Every structure is written in structure tokens, then in C-alpha cells.
């Protein structure tokens, strides 16, 4: 009895080990590809992309043209309706949101999950000026929420707003004029 269970577990364990070793590389590649795609989506074209950097708890990438930083891609999370909502936010040094893209979410399909498919919602983040208030219209800001998904929209807005604040603080620190 014990022998049988041990053998079966041993056998299954070794199968899993092999499959894990085989798939480890493609999984890492797929994740890397998704990351690179999302970064290039949220940043303007041209310039040189840096490696991942860490600061104030944010992971970010910078796009430089010569010596000047032309844009930041910041990985930013907030708690949505179904769990953590992670975005890649492209921000220009003056605080303008260039574009956003969803890295991962666990929102309700058909409702909050629209944050990665709904055209009207996604388009409004493109070239959103620094003068705009990063809050939902319901909360006195300038952002249109997704119908019936206020909590998701609020989390999305918070994540973008955090990213913008982060970039502003980075720039404030760099050129103390």
C-alpha cells in the first residue's frame, strides 16, 4: 500500500520535473515577450530603452534619446474588484500619460475585464494631458468609467495616477530648478 503510493508519487513527480524543465524557457520567453510588447505599446517610438530599474517600490524603464529621458514606462498596480490589477503606464517627463496597457488582471469577465478590451475606455488614456485630473468623473475628475465597473475603473485610474506621481517625483528630484 505504502509502496504503491510512493511509487506512483515518485513517478508523477519525475514526469512533472521533466515537463517543468522543458517548459521553463518558453514560459519565461512568453512572459518577456508580453512585457516587451506592453512597453513598446505605451512608449513613443525611437530612442533607447533601458533595463528594468527599481525606485520607491516601482519597477520602471526609461526611454532615452541621447542624454535626455524622453519617456518612462512604469509598472503600477492597484487593487481592483477581483484582485490585483497591474498596468504598464507610459508617462512623458512633463506628466502627460502617453498610453496604458494592462499586464494582468482578475476582473469579472464581461464587466471589469473590459478594461483591457473596451475601446472607448482605453482610448481616453492616450496622450492624456498633465492638466487633466486623474479621477473618475463620478469622483470629480476627468476619466470616463466603464459601465457597471466603477471599482475596476477606479483602480485603473489610481494605478495610472500613482505612476504619474512617481514620474513627477523623479523629475522633481533630478532638475531642482
Amino acid at each position, binding site marked *: 500500500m505504502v509502496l*504503491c*503510493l510512493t511509487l506512483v508519487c515518485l513517478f508523477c513527480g519525475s*514526469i512533472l520535473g521533466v*515537463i517543468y524543465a522543458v*517548459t521553463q524557457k518558453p*514560459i519565461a520567453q512568453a512572459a518577456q515577450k508580453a512585457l516587451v510588447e506592453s512597453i513598446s505599446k505605451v512608449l513613443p517610438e525611437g530612442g533607447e530603452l533601458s533595463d528594468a530599474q527599481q525606485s520607491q517600490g516601482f519597477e520602471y524603464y526609461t526611454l532615452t534619446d541621447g542624454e535626455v529621458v524622453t519617456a518612462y514606462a512604469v509598472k503600477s498596480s492597484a487593487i481592483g474588484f477581483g484582485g490585483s490589477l497591474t498596468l504598464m503606464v507610459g508617462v512623458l517627463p512633463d506628466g502627460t500619460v502617453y498610453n496604458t496597457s494592462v499586464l494582468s488582471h482578475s476582473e469579472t469577465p*464581461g*464587466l471589469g475585464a473590459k478594461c483591457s478590451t473596451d475601446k472607448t475606455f482605453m482610448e481616453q488614456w492616450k496622450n492624456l494631458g498633465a492638466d487633466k485630473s486623474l479621477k473618475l468623473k463620478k469622483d470629480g475628475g476627468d476619466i470616463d468609467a466603464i459601465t457597471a465597473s466603477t471599482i475596476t475603473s477606479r483602480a485603473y485610474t489610481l494605478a495610472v495616477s500613482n505612476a504619474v506621481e512617481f514620474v513627477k517625483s523623479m523629475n522633481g528630484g533630478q532638475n531642482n530648478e
Partner: protein
Amino acid sequence: MEDRIMSKLSLITKGFIKDNPTFVLVLGMCPTLATTTSALNGLEMGLATLFVLVLSNMAISALAPLVPDKVHIPVYIVVIATFVTVLQLLMQAYVPSVYAQLGLFIPLIVVNCIVLGRAEAFANKNGVIDSALDGLGIGIGFTMSLTAIGVVREILGSGSVFGLKFIPGDGILAFVMAPGAFMVLGYLMVLFNKYLKK
């Protein structure tokens, strides 16, 4: 000879209607209700379960004579969990977009009672080939049912089929959410048992 082919064939086809896992046996309700928000999700979930069902049925029918009665459930669960994890890793590596959609419900196939149910009710008493055919039939039946529920929910909830939108605007949101899943499942079950299952 012809009789044998027919009986093998009936092993597959009985899963479609007579022993349909969703509408007749009423097994595996958790993934049925949770993943059928669209036709494509339902289809993908069905195929994932089909994969596990065929392989676990084969492995268990081969193992069954060697396993003492006292530990047969733990052994089956270990075997099923192994195949599910293999599937999960493969999906993550080669179809990450599908994996992102189904996510949590892939590991939950382990505790899907269809898989354990077929292992207990069929695979441990029958040969490897018969068990594979049984798994195939039940798996196809499950896939068809999930796709059917997904199609109805997607039409009513999003005005589209397989992502092709033909009604502009939002659909009836309730059908994308859990209550709609119960309603669609209930009505389809009634229709299925009235008209198809004779």
C-alpha cells in the same frame, strides 16, 4: 467485427447525449458555470478537460489492477493532478493568451468530478483503449455543452458569437455574470432532456 466497431463507437457517442456530463449526469458544475462567459472560453475549457480526461482515464485503467483498494482514490488524484499540471505548464508556455483567460480554472480541473467520476465508474473496470474512448466521448460531450452554454450567454450578454459582434452596444449584463449562468444552464437542461434525451 461490425458489432465490435459499433460498440466501440457507442462508447464515444454515449457521452454526447445519453451520458452527457453537464445536462444528464450534472457533473463538473463549477467550471461549467464559471468559464462559459463566452463561446470561446467554454470551448477552450472543454478541450482542456478533454485532454486531461483521456489521459487520466488511460493511465488509471492501466494502473487500476496494481493499486490496492485502500489507496485507490489518492493514487487517482495524484495521477489526475499530474496531468493537469502538465497541461497548465504547456498552456502557459505555448498559448499564454488562452492561459490568461482560463487561469485559475485549469488547476481546478483536478477536482472536477467528471474526471474522478469517470476514473471510478469506468476506467478502473475497463481496458486502456475503451477507457480512452470513454474519456474522449465524455470530453466531447462536455465541450459541446460548455460551448452551447457559452454561445447562449455570449449572444444574450454581449451580442456576439465567438467574439463576432452582431448586436451593437451592451448586452444583458446579467447573462455574463453568475446568475445568468444558472439561468442558461437550467433552461438548456430542460430543453435537452425534453427533446434530445429519449
